[in-house]
């Protein structure tokens, strides 16, 4: 039956070839129709087909349709339309058009100009183009070639979709100061609505609708794989510079707004500053609660990752700025402010920052998170998580946190059981384990001044409702030495990857000096054991296919202590 169908089509298609029918030219973006909703329907419909592919929009060239059908039915052309387990990828035919003299793909085919068609398939998940050379009149597919990491020329309906996504995004509307129409995304000089761009990090299909507002132009990078706006960037019209791409846009945004600029934030009686450092992650500093300074700074100095199956194998990573820094895993997107929920209630807010290796979640790439929680009652927490994937399934992650509480003449005491607190008189460290005593509230340390103002430290033992399973941390206390390089400025890597004992770096600052009448620095190094066991994943990520494209299912392993004001504090 299928063959008969093709025969009929081919007959009419050959006639059409003689008359020289071609696909129509440009289509315009219809802003009155929800193109993203239509697109979702189109994608879902394709994914449910036997051969999961979005076909060409209507064309007057019947040969193009025949060529498309022949290509789609050809095994080599469809072999990567599904994952190994049969899950369909999002695939789309971008064009089917006659081969031209310029097409070197002629070389090993019997095609003459005009009798063969080039059918281009784009696989969004794999970021791959597959080209079939088809001779419709002979019902023959001559050649199929895969081009990994390659993207074909964009068809008009996707250009229209990109303009629609950009024109309806709040970031674009805010940047322009008005809601643009489809015509606004037309560059007068080039008569092209789109600038070419790249999404080098995500390896997604991206284009940049550009809005000219002399003397400037707003580039809006749209990701057509995820169908979202990546970001915007103003440029000066007529000036040549580096092309605006996903990575440059992201790097510039982080660099200009968070690495080179100090920010302040105020909410729920809290006020603090923050900055992205070159190697110590996002640093919160000069934090006040109800007008009283409670914190000089808190930050993450190092990530140590070791693999238990390979002695001495692992990495010591710093996190921070993406351009000019000592960081191995860099910030790509701005910090996020989120509500801190306790059941149905909001008990404060969170500032969260992510860091990516470029290839994450592929093996040997990393994704780290920092989280700072600020509670309405004046408590706060510094926490961090790995989201895998690392170089193995036996990774142990050890982030090195540095906490500098405000105040002088501080005293630190550890909970010794039976409502007793034991003061530390010298710089030292302690490892927490199951035998460590905690107060009934869960506190392990009390850091206070002579007026008993200060904070209890509550280590993580799985009680923070964020998936954390307990910190098993080393706690270090050192005397503040502002004249020495002990963390007032960015610290270089202070410890190697793979020490399994207390030698995680802070011990270098322990002499041990006396802690009498001094300002203290707390160091906190939790241990998180990576687990990929189904149902028990931790510090882990899995790449799953959802709606034809890859998504990341994440299993963060948050760890970090909470600081709770001593009753008479506030």
């Amino acid at each position, binding site marked *: 039956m299928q063959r008969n169908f093709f025969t009929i089509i081919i007959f009419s298609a050959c006639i059409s070839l003689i008359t020289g029918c071609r696909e129509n030219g440009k289509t315009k973006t219809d802003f009155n129709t929800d193109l993203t909703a239509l697109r979702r329907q189109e994608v879902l419909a394709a994914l449910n087909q036997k051969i999961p592919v979005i076909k060409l929009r209507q064309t007057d060239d019947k040969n193009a349709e025949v060529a498309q059908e022949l290509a789609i039915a050809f095994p080599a052309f469809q072999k990567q339309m599904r994952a190994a387990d049969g899950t369909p990828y999002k695939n789309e035919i971008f064009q089917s058009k006659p081969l031209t003299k310029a097409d070197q793909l002629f070389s090993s085919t019997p095609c003459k100009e005009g009798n063969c068609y080039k059918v281009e398939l784009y696989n969004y998940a794999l970021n791959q183009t597959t080209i079939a050379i088809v001779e419709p009149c002979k019902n023959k597919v001559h050649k199929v070639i895969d081009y990994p990491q390659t993207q074909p020329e964009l068809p008009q309906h996707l250009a229209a979709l990109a303009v629609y996504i950009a024109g309806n995004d709040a970031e674009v509307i805010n940047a322009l100061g008005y809601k643009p129409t489809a015509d606004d995304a037309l560059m007068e000089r080039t008569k092209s609505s789109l600038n070419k761009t790249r999404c080098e990090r995500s390896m997604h299909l991206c284009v940049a609708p550009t809005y000219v507002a002399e003397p400037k132009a707003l580039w809006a990078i749209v990701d057509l794989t995820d169908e979202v706006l990546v970001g915007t960037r103003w440029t000066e019209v007529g000036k040549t510079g580096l092309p605006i791409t996903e990575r440059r846009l992201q790097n510039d945004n982080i660099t200009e707004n968070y690495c*080179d600029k100090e920010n302040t934030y105020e909410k729920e009686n809290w006020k603090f500053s923050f900055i992205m450092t070159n190697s110590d992650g996002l640093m919160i500093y000069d934090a006040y609660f109800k007008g009283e300074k409670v914190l000089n700074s808190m930050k993450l100095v190092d990530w140590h990752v070791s693999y238990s199956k390979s002695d001495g194998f692992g990495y010591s990573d710093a996190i921070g700025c993406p351009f000019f820094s000592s960081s191995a895993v860099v910030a790509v997107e701005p910090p996020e402010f989120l509500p801190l929920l306790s059941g149905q209630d909001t008990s404060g807010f969170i500032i969260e920052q992510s860091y990516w290796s470029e290839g994450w979640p592929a093996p040997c790439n990393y994704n780290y998170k920092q989280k700072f929680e600020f509670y309405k009652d004046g408590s706060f927490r510094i926490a961090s998580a790995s989201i895998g994937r690392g*170089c193995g399934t036996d990774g142990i992650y050890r982030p090195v946190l540095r906490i500098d509480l405000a105040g002088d003449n501080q005293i630190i005491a550890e909970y010794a059981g039976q409502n007793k607190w034991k003061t530390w008189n010298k710089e030292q460290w302690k490892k927490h384990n199951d035998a460590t005593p905690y107060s009934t509230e869960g506190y392990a340390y009390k850091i206070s001044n002579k007026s008993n103002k200060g904070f209890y430290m509550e280590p993580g033992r799985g009680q923070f409702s964020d998936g954390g399973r307990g910190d098993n941390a080393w706690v270090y206390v050192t005397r503040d030495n502002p004249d020495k390089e002990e963390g007032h400025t960015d610290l270089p890597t202070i410890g190697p990857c793979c020490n399994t004992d207390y030698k995680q770096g802070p011990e270098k600052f322990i002499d041990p000096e006396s802690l009498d009448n001094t300002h203290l620095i707390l160091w906190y190094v939790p241990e998180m054991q990576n687990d990929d066991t189904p149902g028990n994943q931790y510090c882990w990520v899995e790449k799953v296919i959802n709606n034809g494209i890859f998504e990341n299912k994440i299993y963060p392993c948050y760890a970090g202590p909470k600081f709770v004001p001593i009753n008479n504090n506030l």
Partner: protein
Amino acid sequence: MMRYLIFNSIVWLSLQSIITGQNSKCAAIPSFTNKFGFDTKFTALSTDETSVRGLCLIDVRQKYSRSNPPFQHESWDDYGNLSTILRDPNGNCYVFGAPSVNVLYNDPLKQNTLLRVDKDSGIMAPWMEFNAGPKNTSLNPFGLLGIAYDCKTFTMYASSVYHSDRKNEKGIIYHFNPESKKILGQLADIDAIGLQVFEIGTERILLIGKARTSDVYSIKLAPDGGFVGKPKLAFTIEGLGPRGDDKVRKFHIDAKTGDLLVFGTEFYFNLIAPSQDQASTYRFRYDNAKKKWAFIKIE
């Protein structure tokens, strides 16, 4: 799977016909190779082995691991992760430190030092220190990023970004005599990685792979190797390859075709260590009629 070093290098000692060009065509085999018991036919110097840090000698027929590491002289891991290896006509080898992932083994204040491996003893030691001094090491942990040897003049070129920062391109390309250690000339305010002396007919140029952009510049060289005029844009790899924003870290001449093979890598002055080999090689050919470099393909 490992993370890759991006400034690494492997230099075969005897198969010089594979890699020619001014960097290697006068390179001699260091006599320490025999002294250490290696058959030079199958030996390479490498800064690319993941099982050891620094320089090592490898037998290319062997596979190495942490339990079976390649040969290292005791001084070869003293300077952390290393980069490009060059050899001179006497067999002395030149390398420099290049931090990767972190600065634990590469003190940022010592990255502007050219190291030399003595051809006879095999001892690696600091040979020349270019203008260093205090700086914000967390902002820029790098110093030298590229070196080239000129077999016509027996002089060298070294690119340093030691004093550069986000807003200031303060890199210097030094021209110097590696024997007398005398600086013969310098190009200021240019951050560069890949360097290679290249001959086009009677003209000699230094090709310069920029560190901030994907551009390759060239500057004419005088008969004594000195810089003539200012660098000019020769070609770019912007938009090419899987990433599109690679920086040129190395050049080779294809001895068979005379084509220029350009090696790119991702580089944003940070310590990202990619988990995929960044081995995008871009083939360019010089069009003598148009006096232009033409992009041929990616390999």
